[in-house]
């Protein structure tokens, strides 16, 4: 690991605080899926990905695509921390005139690789970027973060088939498997399991990790980079709303911002 675990844990706290403050200020947005993906995105941006914050369009950079675009606040907070977004912009999330659109906009912010928000698109886009890397003989990785509910979109499996077929070993799909979507748990709405078997059947390699454990995430991601055989899917087992007791595994907080009271209480838990 490049960083001390304590450093990463502190980052996680700081980013969760940012996310909650942003959502409170915006009076809307998606806390649950933003919080479940914090460790995944931190591991990518602070441990794994090659990029140059002073040159966000550096051609050799690794690409990250937030296919579950509603977790944008987490990404914005990280981009601000690494210096791609101005920090004082964070609280303008979802406000008229802000580049921080409700869902990521490629045109609005340099560090956003693709416009997302409509679920199901990201893996196909990532495959396209990976194919371009192959044509241009650039060995960057493309990291795509998907929600588990998102996997119910048929296009994801078209894309999984494409990546398997074209042996896009420079693609790594990370599934934020927090077990919930909007209308209920993924098991009760439309079960996506057995997920590892599905990806394997589409000619992918699989790693299963605790999605809040930096070590496990980093090892899996390093494996994905070294894997020159097939695309890798990291199934990251996570907790929706992670880190805030009253948000964890609560459907309500998929798409509701905290009230002032709730914000205070939440921030206390992040002390």
């Amino acid at each position, binding site marked *: 690991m490049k960083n001390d675990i304590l450093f990463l844990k502190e980052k996680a706290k700081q980013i969760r605080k940012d996310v909650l403050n942003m959502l409170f200020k915006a009076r809307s947005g998606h806390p649950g899926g933003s919080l479940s993906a914090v460790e995944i995105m931190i591991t990518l941006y602070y441990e794994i990905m090659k990029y140059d914050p002073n040159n966000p369009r550096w051609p050799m950079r690794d690409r990250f695509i937030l296919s579950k675009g509603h977790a944008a606040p987490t990404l914005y907070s990280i981009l601000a921390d690494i210096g791609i977004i101005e920090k004082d912009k964070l609280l303008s999330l979802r406000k008229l005139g802000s580049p921080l659109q409700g869902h990521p906009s490629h045109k609005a912010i340099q560090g956003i690789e693709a416009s997302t928000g409509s679920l199901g*698109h990201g893996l*196909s*886009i*990532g495959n*396209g970027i990976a194919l371009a890397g192959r044509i241009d003989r650039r060995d960057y990785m493309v990291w795509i973060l998907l929600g588990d509910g998102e996997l119910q979109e048929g296009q994801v499996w078209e894309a999984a088939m*494409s990546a398997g077929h074209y042996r896009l070993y420079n693609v790594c799909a990370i599934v934020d498997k927090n077990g919930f979507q909007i209308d209920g748990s993924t098991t009760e709405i439309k079960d996506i399991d057995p997920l590892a078997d599905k990806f394997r059947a589409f000619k992918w390699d699989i790693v299963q990790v605790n999605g809040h454990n930096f070590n496990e995430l980093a090892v899996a991601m390093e494996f994905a980079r070294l894997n020159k055989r097939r695309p890798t899917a990291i199934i990251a087992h996570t907790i929706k709303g992670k880190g805030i007791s009253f948000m964890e595994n609560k459907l309500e907080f998929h798409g509701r911002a905290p009230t002032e009271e709730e914000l205070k209480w939440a921030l206390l838990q992040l002390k």
Partner: protein
Amino acid sequence: MGIITTQVDTASLRKAYAETLIEIAVRRREIVVLDADLALSTQTYRFKQLFPERFFDMGVSEADMIDTGVGLALSGKIVFVSSFAMFATAKPWEQIRNSAAYAEVALKIVASHSGISVGEDGASHQAIEDLGLMRLIPNITVFIPADANAVKKIIHLAVETPGVVYVRLTRPSLPLFYTEDTEFDNKGFVLLRNFEKPDAVIVATGSMVYPSLKASLELEKKGVKIGVVDVYRLKPYPFRPLLPIFQGIKFIVTVEEHNIIGGLGESLSSFITEVEPHIVKKIALPDAFGVSGNYEALYDFYGLTTEKIISRIEEWLKSI
């Protein structure tokens, strides 16, 4: 500009597309082509034969194809994606809107088999609303070539035009009436026939340009003066420079192989009502699902032939 009106051969628009693409790709290494299991029909297989490393068949997965194209375009490629017009526009419309046009990437959707002239395959394959679907999306440029020589020029234009471009091609070969030196520029239309004081002006697009041209030639023999305009770019609207030509005429006629809703007729009407009072008569497909049949029989059935265009214009000349 040059047009030929006698002894016209027909030529395939799809073939012209593939040949032009190959010609451009020799010089421009950033051209990449995707297809969705219709490479033989769209003719992109010709590109595949020459540039296998820059061609990807995405299989029968149109949404995946569009977004894969987006990824390639985000990485600096100029990406051509092809399928039948139905499956290249209607099926992945949301991918075109949200991933391609919103991010303003260099994705060029060149669709063959548009309109009713797909023929025997019937309603499921007859894209008669593709122009409406595409022109509704911001940041998209919509081109409709009327013959194979126009295709050659327009594929070059598509490469030069930033962002998402839609090019509508037909299955049947069409009369080759443009000479190779005809200019297709940013004007978006070609004034094919102009008169001092025309009775009416036909504004046509794509497959309906040549039948309209012939209708005008026939009507001239009867002493009726009908101007003819080929609109090869539907969006952004190319109509403003046409206003002087419309001065003093009885009516405008739009002719298109598209649902009467959403295409050229509606575009021109919506533009013109903002600026001048004009009657815009529309020759188009009815707002109904198509049926199977030989395409020439279908053109006749739906009134999209020179003879039927003439008789409707004569009718309107009497009644308006």
